[in-house]
Each structure stands twice: as C-alpha cells, then as structure tokens.
C-alpha cells in the first residue's frame, strides 16, 4: 500500500502551486529599484591578442553609466578553481589565471572583453556596438592531441604547455596492468569519444547585485546551485569581500544539471559593478550567450582495453583519456576526469587490475566542468561499451558476460581506491530483463525485420559514486573545500517547524521530500514543516546541491539536527509529565511515558520550550532550535541495469527509441514520485547525448552549435514513455536514512545502453559495425552501415 505521508510516500509537491500559477520567483523576476543593466561584449574569435579597446564613443551614448574593461579589475582576483589535481609525477597541475574580463588575450569565443552598464538593456546593447576592439587573431588550439605536440601554439603563454596535468591512477598498478594485458587470452580494444554537451537548464543564468554603502553590504541574487560556495569563492578569492558583508541568494532556480554550480565571472562583475556605479546592476544571459559562457560538459577522447581469460573473466583494464578543460579551469573542472571518473572504472565488476591515465588539455573552447553525472557517465560509457564489444568478440551473451564478472560480496574494495558498501547487481539485472520483456525480444525483432526495420536491444549496468563527499578524503585528493552539509531545525512555539538547509532545490522538490523526513521522525503533518534554502543570510554554511548529494548528505544533516530536537523535546516532556527521560517515547506527534497512559502533545512541549514557566531551567536552556553539520563517512553507490530497445531505418539511418527500461538500486526512497521524475529526466539527457546532442566547433574555433537552431535538444517526440523501477533496494550502510541518491543515474546509464542497442541492431543485420561515436544521428548511422 502506498503511504499517504512521511518517508516513502509520493507526497505531491508543494512548490508546484507557485510554479503552476506563474508565481515562482526566479532571479530574472527580481528587479531592484534604480537598477542598471549589464551587457557583455564577448570575443567572436577563438584566440587572439587584444591590441586596443576604445570605449569613449560608447560612454558618450545615451543612458550609459560606464563601460568596464580589464583595466577596471586591476587588483581584483581571478575566478578561482576549487580543486588542485596532482599529476602522476607528484607535481601540481598547471593552473592559469582566469580574469573576470579578458586581459591582453581572448581565449575562446564568448570570452568576455568589456561590459556596458546602462539605464536599460536596449541602451547597453546599442552602446556595445560603439565599443571599438582591435584584436589580432591567433591560431586556435582545438584538437587535444595536437595541442600536446612540441611547438604547439599555447592557450596560456605563461604555462609551459597546454597540458593541465597527466594523471595516472593507480600509478603503482601501471606495470602490473601492462603485464596482465600483454599476457591475456584476449584483449578487447575500443577507441571512442564522449561528445561535448551543453547542460542547458531552461532558465538561463542571471545575476542581480546590490550594494548598500551605508553598511558596506553586498547582496547578489544569482542562479546558483550553491549560494554559500559562491559567497566563499567570490568573497574570499575574487573581490575580497568579508562574508558577513556579502549575502548571496539563489531563489527559485530553473534547473542546474551542474552548469549552475560554478562561480562565474558575470556574478563577480555585477557585484563589483554595483558598488562601482552606485546602483544595482542586473545581467540576464541570453540563450546564445549561455552556449558560449555556461561551462560545457564531457568532451573526452578515450582508448580503453579490457583483458580477459578464456572464460571471459576480466583480468585487467587500461584506459588512456584526453579530457578537454577548455580555455580556463572552471570551479571543479580538474576533479571531473580524475576523481569522479577514474575511481569508477571498476564498474560493477571484479576486475583486479586497473590503470587509468588522463591528460587534461587546455584548448580555445568554453571551459568544461561537471554536467549531470560528471565523470561517471564518461567512465560508464567506455566501460559498458567495451564490455559489450568484448562479449561479441568472445561469443558470450552480453548479459552473461556481465554476470560472470559482477561483484557479489560487500563491502567491496575496488582497485581504484573506493569501497562499495552495498549492492545487488544480479537483482537489478534480473529486474531489467523482466521489465523489458527481454525474453520476447526475438519475436519483436522478427516483426521489425518483416517491416524492413532493424531492431536491437542494448544493456548497460552502471555504478556511480554519490553523496559527495567525505571532507578529509577529498581534501587529500586536492579539493579546496569541505563537502559536508548543514541543517538548522527551528521549532516554533506552536509546534510548526522551519528547516534551514544548506542544500538547494532547483527542480528536485526538496521543499516536499525534506519535509517528509522531518514529519516522519516527529510524527506530525508535513504541512507543519517548511524548508528554507538558497539564502546565505538564512541558512547555515552549506555546500549546495550537485553530485546527487542532497538527500544523502543534506538529508542526513537534517536527520541529525532533528534527532537533537527530539532528544531535547523528550527531556522537556519528561519534566512536564514528571517522568524519567528514559521512559519517554515519541510517536505520532505525542510524547508518552512507557507503560502508562500519560501523554503530552508535540505542541505542548514546543510551547513549554518557549514559554518556560514549568521548565527545568536549571538544567536546560529554553528554546528548541538545533543545527547539525553532517560529513559523510563514504560516498554512496547507486547502481542499476538499463535496457534500450531501438529500431533503425536502414534506408535513412534514423534511430527510433522504442522503449527504455531502468532498474535502479537507490537504497531507501523518500518520495517515489520524485525519484521516478529524476530518473526520467536523467534518461532524457542521456538519450539526448547518445542520439541528438552535440556541441561542435569548426576548425577556426567558432561555436557551430551556438543556439537552439543548431544544438539539438531532445523534444517530446524524440523520446518514449520510460519504464522505471526502484524496487531493488540495498540500503546505504553509512548514512542514517539508508539513501544513495538518484539525480544523475539516468544520465549515466543510458548512453551506453542506447549505443549498444544500435550496434546490436546493425550487427544482427550483418553489418560489421562495432562502434559509432555519439550522437547517433541518421547521417552517422547510415554512414557506418554503408562504409
């Protein structure tokens, strides 16, 4: 029976009421009296030397407050990077300066050069036309392998080369892996690309900054997944504003998917400019601007080799990846191809020897950082593709080959430094085969064949690391931040509760699901609980939402704070009922004395806390408000089996996704409806990557896919109804809710399943096609069939 409230209930989302009636408050809906508008003038070339910038004509135009260039930012820090990777020789990565506005050189199309601030956006745009910028174009650095050749043009003149780092993991295993591959019965090799993507949350980025010179207080409203992180990075490293004088607010945010984690130059600019011009400054990104200024995702080129014995047992795995950093290091960019990618290369398998090499490369392209999944989709794609290819080469069914190598005993320490706490990969595989009617596939394939179509079925099994992350561990790995989460539970006198969380909801429904957890623990109605998030002046220092961490880390902080509340409330109840604290039980919102009919209601206890007339004041402070910071002991490890069924039109190469099934193990579930919605969205983005999406540059470094005219977003008629299941549950063993996180799984497991399905369809029809790079457009599929 579905529950009607608390943990496990599909409670309807309370936030929907404002979103469905047009009353959401997104950053672009904020207007501050007297505000000016910023318009960014961006580089239209990939690489060039700035010879001169003449702003005089523009500054004389109507409504113009000021035109800013890099000279206005002398003495201001660059946009910082939050993670320092150490290379395989023990050296720190190369880390270039990332100025707020371009200094001397432009390094990608979209690099901001100057900003006009004017009374209206129209006036700012008009004046931007009058800014004269003289640039000498330089040869663009685009191909990662060419960029590492001796004598290659450098993106940053002050670095020794275009190599950010050469990372080896685990370096001590390198020789053993090489030896195992050399001596193996069979080695399957695959070279592939993980295509560059643009996250494209539907709400473009916006920043509105205000400054009060009487208090020296700055306020920044921004489209962020983590306002405290922005406050820390911008305050401490860019503008030198002490945190108590800087408030960052991320109100309703229209999707993030990673792209709104990072601290961006536009935020620092507006905050700086609001003080400089003495009035609020607003910037709203256009979609075209978003394509050339939001951090991109993926963009790996990989060679992967899998060594097996004669029974298909995996012996060793070796990968060689080039990862594109773009022109500058975005906030978490260096960690994505390393710690969020290399550590997942064991997948669900017992492969004993693994070596991952990653060369991160600077190019004249938009910076690349985490996008839904962040390193884990790249790991899963190459692994699940090579396993599928290996199955075909070994003549073993792809399901069977996976099963032969599944990890079955937990906890399991992988050779890539992580320890999976729980999982049951056979269970998710079984579930997938059942829900996708795998047994009936051959009959459906015959039907397609009779209709002149090629049907294929592809499987992928994924592992991911969520609940990011133990602070002491990530500190050792180069993170320049802790990755705990916080919550303050404030119980009001009449028993209602405000929970201030450091997590941030930008579509995930925290206002509903977080309230379910607290309601369940106390036994009161969810409607008595409000979740407050997204404002550094209201919430305790929190690290925000990404890496499927909110319920696993933020939820755990909230549980810890609520436990403190309950402990204190029990003491108050014991006093009120003149009973021993140890005998007090809390159930359904009432405190009882075990073995008696004595009872006191939740609201009576909370009132006593704030009207402490009959209260043990000598032992306890009045009030009922507690804060907890939760630092996880480990990552969480969701896993799942995904199956994709496609039909290929042999005449055109068009791929139609007929069905997609996802059997996930997310541990315990708070709100099944929300979890399913998260999987649907992830699947759409993963299918989008595999089928239609591609961020492309031409040979001059021009962004070809710079708008929705050229970058294909998955539309309703590109996708099927999804078949999702989360009934395979192995609870996480190290957090209080037993939860693992579900936000990214769909985007991680789906691309290899889809590509495996298309390769299956083509091979069944006799085509010798072992791989096609994503996206599988009709052109690429047809060309592969006819080459």
């Amino acid at each position, binding site marked *: 029976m579905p529950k009607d409230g608390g943990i496990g209930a599909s409670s309807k989302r309370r936030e929907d009421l404002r979103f469905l009636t047009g009353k959401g408050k997104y950053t672009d809906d904020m207007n501050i009296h007297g505000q000016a508008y910023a318009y960014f003038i961006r580089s239209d070339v990939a690489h060039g030397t700035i010879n001169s910038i003449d702003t005089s004509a523009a500054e004389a135009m109507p409504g113009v407050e000021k035109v800013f260039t890099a000279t206005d930012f002398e003495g201001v820090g660059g946009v910082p990077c939050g993670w320092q990777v150490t290379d395989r020789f023990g050296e720190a990565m190369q880390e270039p300066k990332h100025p707020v506005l371009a200094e001397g050189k432009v390094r990608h199309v979209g690099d901001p050069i100057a900003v006009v601030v004017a009374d209206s956006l129209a006036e700012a745009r008009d004046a931007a036309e009058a800014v004269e910028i003289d640039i000498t174009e330089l040869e663009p650095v685009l191909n990662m392998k060419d960029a590492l050749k001796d004598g290659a043009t450098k993106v940053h003149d002050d670095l020794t080369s275009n190599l950010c780092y050469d990372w080896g993991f685990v370096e001590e295993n390198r020789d053993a892996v090489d030896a195992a591959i050399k001596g193996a019965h069979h080695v399957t090799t695959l070279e592939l690309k993980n295509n560059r993507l643009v996250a494209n949350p539907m709400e473009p980025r916006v920043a509105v900054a205000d400054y009060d010179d009487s208090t020296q207080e700055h306020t920044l409203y921004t489209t962020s997944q983590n306002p405290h992180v922005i406050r820390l990075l911008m305050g401490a490293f860019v503008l030198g504003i002490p945190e108590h004088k800087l408030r960052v607010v991320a109100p309703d945010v229209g999707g993030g998917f990673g792209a709104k984690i990072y601290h961006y130059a536009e935020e620092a600019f507006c905050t700086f400019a609001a003080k400089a011009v003495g009035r609020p400054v607003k910037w709203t990104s256009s*979609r075209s601007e978003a394509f050339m200024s939001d951090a991109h995702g993926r963009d790996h080129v990989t060679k992967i080799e899998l060594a097996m014995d004669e029974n298909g047992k995996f012996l060793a795995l070796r990968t060689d990846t080039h990862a594109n950093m773009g022109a500058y290091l975005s906030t978490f960019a260096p960690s994505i191809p390393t710690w969020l990618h290399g550590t997942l290369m064991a997948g669900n398998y017992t492969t004993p020897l693994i070596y991952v090499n990653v060369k991160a490369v600077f190019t004249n392209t938009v910076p690349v950082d985490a996008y839904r999944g962040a390193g884990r989709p790249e790991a899963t794609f190459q692994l699940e593709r090579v396993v599928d290819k290996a199955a075909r080469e070994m003549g073993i069914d792809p399901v069977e080959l996976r099963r032969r190598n599944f990890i079955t005993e937990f906890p399991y320490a992988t050779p890539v430094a992580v320890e999976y706490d729980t999982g049951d990969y056979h269970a998710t595989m079984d579930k997938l085969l059942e829900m996708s009617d795998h047994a009936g596939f051959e009959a459906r394939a015959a039907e397609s064949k009779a209709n002149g179509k090629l049907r294929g079925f592809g499987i992928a099994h994924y592992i991911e690391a969520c609940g990011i992350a133990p602070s002491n561990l990530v500190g050792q790995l180069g993170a320049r931040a802790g990755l705990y989460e916080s919550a303050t539970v404030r119980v009001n006198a009449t028993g209602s509760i405000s929970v201030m969380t450091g997590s941030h909801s930008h579509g995930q429904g925290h206002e509903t699901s977080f309230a379910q957890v607290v309601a369940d623990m106390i036994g009161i109605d969810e409607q008595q609980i409000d979740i407050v998030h997204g404002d550094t002046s209201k919430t305790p220092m929190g690290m925000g939402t990404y890496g499927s961490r909110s319920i696993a880390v933020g939820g755990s902080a909230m549980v810890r704070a609520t436990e403190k509340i309950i402990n204190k409330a029990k003491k108050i109840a014991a006093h009120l009922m003149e009973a021993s604290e140890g005998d007090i039980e809390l159930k359904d919102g009432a405190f009882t004395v075990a073995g008696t009919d004595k009872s006191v209601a939740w609201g009576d206890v909370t009132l006593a806390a704030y009207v402490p007339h009959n209260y043990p004041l000598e032992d306890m402070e009045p009030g009922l408000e507690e804060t907890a910071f939760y630092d996880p002991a480990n990552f969480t490890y969701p896993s799942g089996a995904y199956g994709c069924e496609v039909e290929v039109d042999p005449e055109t190469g068009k791929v139609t996704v007929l069905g997609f099934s996802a059997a996930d193990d997310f541990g315990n579930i708070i709100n099944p409806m929300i979890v399913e919605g998260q999987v649907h969205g992830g699947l759409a983005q993963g299918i989008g990557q595999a089928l239609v999406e591609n961020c492309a540059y031409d040979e001059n470094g021009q962004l070809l896919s710079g708008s929705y005219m050229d970058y294909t977003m998955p539309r*309703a008629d590109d996708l099927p109804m*999804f078949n999702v299941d989360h009934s395979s549950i192995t609870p996480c063993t190290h957090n209080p809710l037993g939860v693992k996180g579900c936000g990214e799984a769909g985007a991680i497991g789906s691309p290899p399943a889809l590509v495996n399905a298309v390769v299956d369809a083509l091979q069944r029809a006799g085509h010798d096609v072992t791989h096609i790079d994503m996206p599988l457009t009709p052109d690429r599929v047809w060309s592969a069939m006819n080459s």
Partner: protein
Amino acid sequence: MTKVTLTVNGKTVSKSVEGRTLLSSLLREDLNLTGTHIGCDTSQCGACVVHVNGEAVKSCTMFAAEADGAEVKTIEGMANADGSLSVIQAAFQEHHGLQCGFCTPGMVMSAAALLKDNPKPSEVEIRAYLEGNLCRCTGYHNIVKAIMAASGQDVPAVAAE
C-alpha cells in the same frame, strides 16, 4: 513610442511601448506578469507561450504593438476563479509534470490550447504538439501523462504509478 491597449487575463491595460518591444517583454517588464518565462532567443523553447485571442502564441515572436486590441491570457490567468488549480494545472501537480518549473507556464498554456482543439489527444499527438516546448527536467514522460489525465483519459499502462 506606441500606445497599446489590450486585455490581459480579463483586465484592460494600456501601455506606451517602443516599436521593438516584444509581447513577452511587455508582459514581464511592464505588467509584472513574470510567470511568462524567456528561455531562449530563437523562439524555440516555448517557455513564453501565452494565448492571444484564444490561440497559443510564443510571446517572444510577437511585438507588443501587434497585440493592440487583443485578448491575452497568461499563466497567471489560468487558475479557477476561486484561485484553485484548473484541471490542467492540477493534473500537472498530480502526475509530477514539472520539476524546476521554468518551462511549466509554457507547457500549461500549450496543453490548454491542444486540449481546446483536440479534447482527447493520443500520446503521439501530444508529443507532436509539444514539439515547440522544451523541458530539460522531466523527459516529458510525466508531462504527457498529465495532459492525458487532464483530458480524462487513462494514462498509458507503461506509465503506471
């Protein structure tokens, strides 16, 4: 500047606008109806869909001056008279047809226009009709379900709760 007079959500309003002012800007900036969202600059995302004289229109494709004399309905005008959610809005909540909420106003306005012309659309017809509305959160699955439910149909078996 041109003076435009139009009816928005049943209320007559007059504003002076520049020739280049888009209907979407008039609604958001001049009338403070910020439920209509701007998600792109090439008229593809559909977050700004409103009804003009009963037809679904991307309000970024129309100059404010062109709406002179028109009857415009926005997401703010979609709830029932007593403030409760309309059938379509309620179905979006019931079936979790929204996550971040940014595309939602356009989706609801498009869905209402679809159901006016085609009261019992098939799944294929719904997906085809939504070609001009992008959503990045839901994968469209629950939006399709919500629209089918709003039209009084059973949602597809594969989409069972």
